[in-house]
C-alpha cells in the first residue's frame, strides 16, 4: 500500500508557483462535499507583487513578433489538449473543448488583428498616414464565478494577444481550473510574468485592482455596484475599464472576434512625409 501524495495548489505568478505572502488559505470541496484542496487566499500585497512581475515579463512579450506570439499561444492550446481529460474533470468536456478552440482562435488573430484594427488614412497633404496599435501595458482581469476556465481565458486572451501582460483573479468558488491552467502556462513557452493568476476574495482585492496606477486597463465581469466601484477607482489613474455582464454566454462565437483586442491597445498614428 502506498501513501497518497496530494497536491498543494499554488498560484502562477511571474513564472513561478507561489503561496500567498500572507500565508492564508481557504478550503474548496467537491460537489459531493468531500474536501478537495486548500487554495491560496491572496492579499493586496500579492496583487502588488503580481503587478511587478507583470511589468517585468510584459516588456519582452510586447517586443516579440506577432508571429511568435501566435506560435506560443498555439503551443498553449497544445498543452491544454494534452491534459484535456484532467481539465474536463474540474470543468466540463464542453468548456475545455471551447477553451482550446478559443486559444487557437486568438493564436490565429495574433499576426492578423493589426490588419483589422490598423488603417491607412486618407489625408489632404503630401503624407503617407497610417495607424498602428500598441499594447496598453498591464491589464487587470476579474473573472466570474461560473465558467471558471472559459470565461477566464476569454478575458485574458484579447489582452495578451496584443502584447499586454495580465494579472487575473480567478473564480473564488471554482479556482481549481486556474491552478491547472497555471501549470500548463508554465510549460507553454509563454514568458514568465505575462499571465499571472491569483486566487482569493474578490471583495478584498477589487479596490486595489481599481486604484493601482500601474494597471492600465481592467477587464471584469461585474454587477452594477462592482462596476461603479471599479470605474470610480479607475478614474484617478485614467484606466480603461471593460465591464462584462456576469450572465454573458461565454460559449458564444462572438467572443472569438478580434475587436475585443482593440480595448487593450492604443492607436499610434504616423504622418510620413512623401514627395508632392
Amino acid at each position, binding site marked *: 500500500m502506498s501513501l497518497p501524495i496530494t497536491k498543494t495548489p499554488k498560484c502562477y505568478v511571474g513564472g513561478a508557483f507561489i503561496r500567498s505572502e500572507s500565508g492564508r488559505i481557504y478550503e474548496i470541496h467537491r460537489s459531493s462535499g468531500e474536501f478537495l484542496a486548500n487554495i491560496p487566499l491572496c492579499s493586496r500585497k500579492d496583487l502588488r507583487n503580481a503587478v511587478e512581475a507583470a511589468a517585468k515579463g510584459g516588456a519582452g512579450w510586447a517586443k516579440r513578433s506577432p508571429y511568435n506570439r501566435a506560435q506560443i499561444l498555439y503551443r498553449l492550446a497544445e498543452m491544454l489538449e494534452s491534459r484535456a481529460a484532467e481539465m474536463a474533470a474540474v470543468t466540463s468536456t464542453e468548456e475545455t473543448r471551447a477553451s482550446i478552440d478559443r486559444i487557437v482562435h486568438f493564436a490565429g488573430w495574433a499576426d492578423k488583428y493589426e490588419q483589422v484594427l490598423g488603417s491607412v488614412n486618407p489625408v489632404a497633404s503630401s503624407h503617407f498616414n497610417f495607424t498602428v496599435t500598441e499594447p496598453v501595458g498591464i491589464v487587470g482581469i476579474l473573472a466570474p464565478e461560473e465558467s471558471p476556465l472559459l470565461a477566464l481565458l476569454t478575458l485574458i486572451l484579447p489582452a495578451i494577444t496584443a502584447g499586454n501582460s495580465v494579472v487575473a483573479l480567478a473564480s473564488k468558488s471554482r479556482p481549481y481550473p486556474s491552478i491547472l491552467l497555471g501549470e500548463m502556462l508554465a510549460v507553454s513557452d509563454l514568458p514568465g510574468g505575462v499571465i499571472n493568476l491569483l486566487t482569493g476574495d474578490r471583495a478584498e482585492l477589487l479596490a486595489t485592482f481599481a486604484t*493601482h496606477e500601474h494597471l492600465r486597463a481592467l477587464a471584469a465581469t461585474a454587477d452594477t455596484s462592482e462596476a461603479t466601484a471599479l470605474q470610480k477607482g479607475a478614474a484617478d489613474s485614467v484606466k480603461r475599464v471593460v465591464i462584462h455582464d456576469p450572465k454573458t454566454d461565454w460559449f458564444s462565437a462572438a467572443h472569438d472576434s478580434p475587436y475585443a483586442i482593440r480595448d487593450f491597445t492604443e492607436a499610434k498614428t504616423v504622418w510620413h512625409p512623401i514627395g508632392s
Partner: protein
Amino acid sequence: MPAPALRRLLDEIGPVDATGVEERVAKYATRSIKKKSKIFGLKLAVSMVDLTTLEGKDTAGKVASLCQKALRPHDAGDVPQVAAVCVYPAMVKHAAKHVKGTGVRIASVATAFPSGQAPLRTRLAEVKQAVADGADEIDMVINRGAFLSGSFAEMQDEIAAVVEACGEATLKVILETSELETYDNIRAASFLSMRVIRPGDFIKTSTGKTSANATLGNQQVMLDAIRDFYLQTGTEIAMKPAGGIKTAKQALQFLIAVKETLGDRWLNNSRYRFGASSLLNDLLRQLETQRTGAYQAPWTFTEDSGGY
C-alpha cells in the same frame, strides 16, 4: 591561514562569528514596520540618501538635473531633501552651482575611484582639487592590495594622508567589502580605518562598481565594529552602505540594523547615509502609496533616474 599581521590584529579586536552575523541579519527582514513608523522610516531614509551618479557618460546637464532632484525629490507631500549629491571630481564644480548653500552637500569620490590604483601623489592631488572645487565630503577607496598583503601601516598612512588633504571636508573610507572576501577582513579593515580618521568621518561598504555590493551581513560587521570602537574610545564613526540598495524595503531593513545595533544617535544623516541612485525613486513611490492609498506606477517619478 590569515597573514601573521592580520592574526595579531584579530587577536586584539576579536574575530567575527560569521554564522551568528548571518542569523542576526536574517531576523531584521522579519520586523513589521507599518503606518506612521513606516512613513517616518521612509522620510528618514530620503534624508539620508547620497544621490549618486558615477558614470563615464555624466555631463554637466545630467548633474544639474540630479541636483534639482536632490533639492526637491517630489512635489507632492512633505518630502525632505536628500543629504548629498555624489559625483566624480570633474563634476564637483557643476554641482556646486546648484546646491551650494542649500543644505544639500556635495560628495565626491576621489583617490582614483573605484580601483585606487594610482600613485599616492596623484590620489592626493585629486582630493585637494575636489575640495578646492567645492566638495564637502570625499569618498576615498582604501588600498586593498596593501591590506590583503598585510601592509597595514602602508594602508593607514595613505588614509592619514588623505585625511590631511581633506582639510575641512568629511571623509568616507570605502573598504570595498567584496574584495576583502571575509567578515574577519572587513572587521579588521574597519578598525584600521577608524583608528586614523576623525570623529564624524564615515566608513563605507562598497564602490558599487563590483559585482557584490552592500549587504545586511557586511553592514552588520561594520556596525558592530563601529559600536566596539565607540565603546573603547568614545569616538563616533559614521556609516554608509552603498551599491545594490534599490528598494525602500531594503532601506528600512538597513535602518532597523542601525537602530538595533547603534541606537538613535546614529539615526540621522550626519551619522548614516545610503549611497544609491535608484533607491530614492522607490522611497518616493512608497511614500506616495502611503499618502494616496493607491499603489503607484514607476513612471510617476522622474523616469530618467535610471540613468543617474
